């Protein structure tokens, strides 16, 4: 097992290099650079712009810039943000907490509800419950996130039940700890429901389909025919097989937790990495964008690895092997 993990990690290096090369040069292909806002400022002279280009290293050719950046990464220096004038990690760490809180809560919401609902739907195939769940799921999946978010905020503004965006109440700092937790859930509800409803239906449909497939398999029929109680058949045997694709999708979830909520974050003024990256891309704050992309790459690889290990744990038929 350990050997497998080590080999997977070694194989991840060329993948990450590839990711960084492509991201870096796509950034370079985009027109302009960080200094464009300076260029259109009537008070800044051309000589000053040239000085700033040297200061920020933008006067070197892209290949040199890439290798300088790579060299620094290997030394553990991820570069610094042109806009914030501080280390990119410091910028990202300021946002990471909000993103993780939202991501994890959404993840628990979608999986915690999606899996049981999928099972319920499968067990009541073609009955009212199944159809009602499908309908709700489809509505959730088909309303665009930004629209759902705006509807939610308008509703909140009119009723006052939930806050109008934001992450912390004004008095947050003075609240006792239990109230702070409550405040968090009060604020996170909107974004979680917006994001959750969109992916809930997906999880639910996959789970339902899988359970139905497995229930029609010979082994399940055999077990039932043998007189095994149907609960045991479902929860002990078919569920274990059915859950595999859901576990596989966990690998992707981990990286999408960090970057998948841009629009929702924007509308809800949720101070996560998504909105930070949006600004960084517009301002061409390259090192910040690169750090984020690389981080996403690392998380995607880690996520897949974790998913594979979980898969092996849940399904003995899966062997962790690698073709030589």
């Amino acid at each position, binding site marked *: 097992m350990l050997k497998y993990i080590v080999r997977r990690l070694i194989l991840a290096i060329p993948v990450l290099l590839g990711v960084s090369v492509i991201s870096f040069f796509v950034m370079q292909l985009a027109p302009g650079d960080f200094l464009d806002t300076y260029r259109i400022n009537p*008070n800044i002279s*051309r000589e*000053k712009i040239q000085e700033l280009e040297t200061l920020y290293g933008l006067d070197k050719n892209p290949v040199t810039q890439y290798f300088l950046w790579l060299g620094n990464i290997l030394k553990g220096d991820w570069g610094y943000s042109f*806009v914030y004038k501080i280390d990119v990690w410091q910028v990202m760490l300021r946002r990471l907490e909000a993103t993780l809180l939202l991501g994890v809560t959404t993840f628990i919401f979608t999986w915690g509800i999606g899996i049981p609902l999928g099972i319920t739907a499968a067990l009541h195939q073609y009955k009212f419950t199944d159809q009602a769940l499908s309908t709700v799921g489809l509505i959730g999946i088909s309303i665009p996130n930004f629209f759902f978010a*705006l509807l939610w905020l308008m509703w909140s503004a009119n009723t006052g039940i939930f806050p*109008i965006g934001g992450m912390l109440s004004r008095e947050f700092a003075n609240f006792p700890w239990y109230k702070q937790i409550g405040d968090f859930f009060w604020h996170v509800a909107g974004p979680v429901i917006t994001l959750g409803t969109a992916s809930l239906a997906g999880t639910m449909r996959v789970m339902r389909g899988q359970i139905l497939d497995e229930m029609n398999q010979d082994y399940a029929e055999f077990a039932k025919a043998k007189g095994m109680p149907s609960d045991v058949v479902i929860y002990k045997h078919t569920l274990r097989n059915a859950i595999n694709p859901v576990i596989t999708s966990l690998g992707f979830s981990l990286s999408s937790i960090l970057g998948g909520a841009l629009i929702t974050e924007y509308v809800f*003024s*949720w101070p996560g990495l998504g909105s930070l990256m949006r600004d960084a891309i517009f301002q061409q704050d390259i090192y910040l964008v690169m750090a984020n992309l690389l981080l996403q790459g690392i998380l995607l690889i880690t996520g897949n690895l974790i998913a594979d290990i979980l898969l092996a744990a849940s399904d003995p038929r899966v062997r962790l092997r690698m073709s030589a």
Partner: protein
Amino acid sequence: MRKLLVLVVVVLSALTIFAEEAYNPEWLIADVEGGQRGGTLYLATTSGPKTLNTYWAQETSSSIIINQGDVSLLSNDFYGQPTQPSLAKDWGVERTEDGGTLYWFVMREGVRWSDGHPLTIDDVVFTWEKIIVPDLTADGNDVYMDAEGNLPELTVEGNKIMFKYPTVFRFGFQTVGGFAIMPKHVLEDKVTDAETFQSTWTVEQIDQLVVGGPFKVTEYTEGVRVVLERNPYYFEKTKDGVQLPYLDRIVFEIVTDSNVARLRFEAGETDMHGPAAKDFPALRAQADKKGWNVIVGPATAGSNFVAFNFNAADPVHREWFRNDNFRKAIAYAFDKQTIIDTLYNGLAVPCYGPRTNSSAFYNPKIEELGFRHSLVTAQRLLREAGFSLNEKGELVDWDGNVVEFELNTNGENVVRNEIAVILVDSLAKLGIKVNYRPLQFNAVVQKLYSANLDAIIIGLVGGDDPGWGTNVWLLDGGLHFWNWSPEVMDWVDPDEYWVHPAEQRIDEILRVSRSILDKDELQKLWDEWQMLIAENQILVYTISQNYLNMHKNTLHLYPVEKYGTINPYGYSYSPGMWKIEYAWKE
């Protein structure tokens, strides 16, 4: 017990009196009275500050916050002109015997920084000698130079600070009177080079921030809110003796989406809102019920214009764009009133030249030039220039080329996008085919620097005084993008380079204006400058929105109380914030 309480009260009051006496600078007495001290002002802003270093802030999201703590020798009046006292209690300008100009300022004494450390002439000298002269700022020190590129010589005599230019230089009050003064005792070891200085007072270093202005950033929760608190040592008092600012705190809530900012204001969570013109009628309808004060201010300073590239890559296009009648025809074809009525609900004014009617330098004569919407006039002008319509209804030039060009703007700017669409439609009526391509901001900037540009809709910001526009208006200016000089852009062929006579004169005016101190003489030049641009439509100006502002009735804004409107030029990115130290809440 009671005795003890009395004793405590007596001791505390004695301490307070003592403390107040301990800080007794030469107060600046503001022309306000009767306000209430205390309270928190809640505002929404689209994004948090990126840096707290005023000399490296390039985004309004940063400057709107940092500027509340900035202090300089002079402050600006309602028109954005540096005519008001601040740290300087007395000032003046003199012509020296050797033909130079001497700007002098007498500093207020006994003033302190927000940490209690004395704010003296040493800090002014420090900022000048260690930050501005060595060029450690993002903007550079060009603006402080006279026409010959000299920085002034600084001398100090007791409490009088003097800046002496070897030539006649007009901008002294704006430049040397207007730079933000930084605390020497805090930043002394941070001014070694530009790289170190720009990483000073980042958003990570709020605890090191020391200000001389009315408000200081004390707390920033990334992406959530910025809290500013009163500077306990701010040196301004009202006429009835209240130390300013009135407000205890300003809280900027970070609300990224403008629709949500509106919802927040409607729900009463923020005190002030600058609505978009399209939202204005719906919000005004609620104003009485919700207790809001509604202000339709003067026209905004920055206006959008259409620029044609006199050096376009295609020689045929170049010839059209350099043709006066062609540009004038565009101006006539462009229906400003329709844009104002349909896109702005009537909350905008047509622009005929580079300054709007709210400017201190506006020349109303340009309105008499008669550039009102008229397709007939446009057609006549085109015909006179040698253009004609072919059998397909397309406009063709004297050589039979069909008139067709590309128009760009940065598409994320909704207003420019809409102006573009209307322009395309108007020009179609003249038989001109315009291929409209909205671009992302960075791509637009790159286009400005290239020959591939045909026409563009864009706006520039900057000070109200036209003299600040040298980068834009001088023939070899670094932002003279519609007609780059071959000296600035090497892709411009010197043999093909052509200068409009009006541009030549504009160049002269801008150079001469730097050394004219007489106001009337200067205004004559600015009148001529506006006329030259408008008559020849060097740039085709469009429209300018009115400043719109709504705030709770319980909030008293100084410009509104004093001038009946909000300030158009003193504070261009949020006119309601001008002189916020005088604002108070019931």
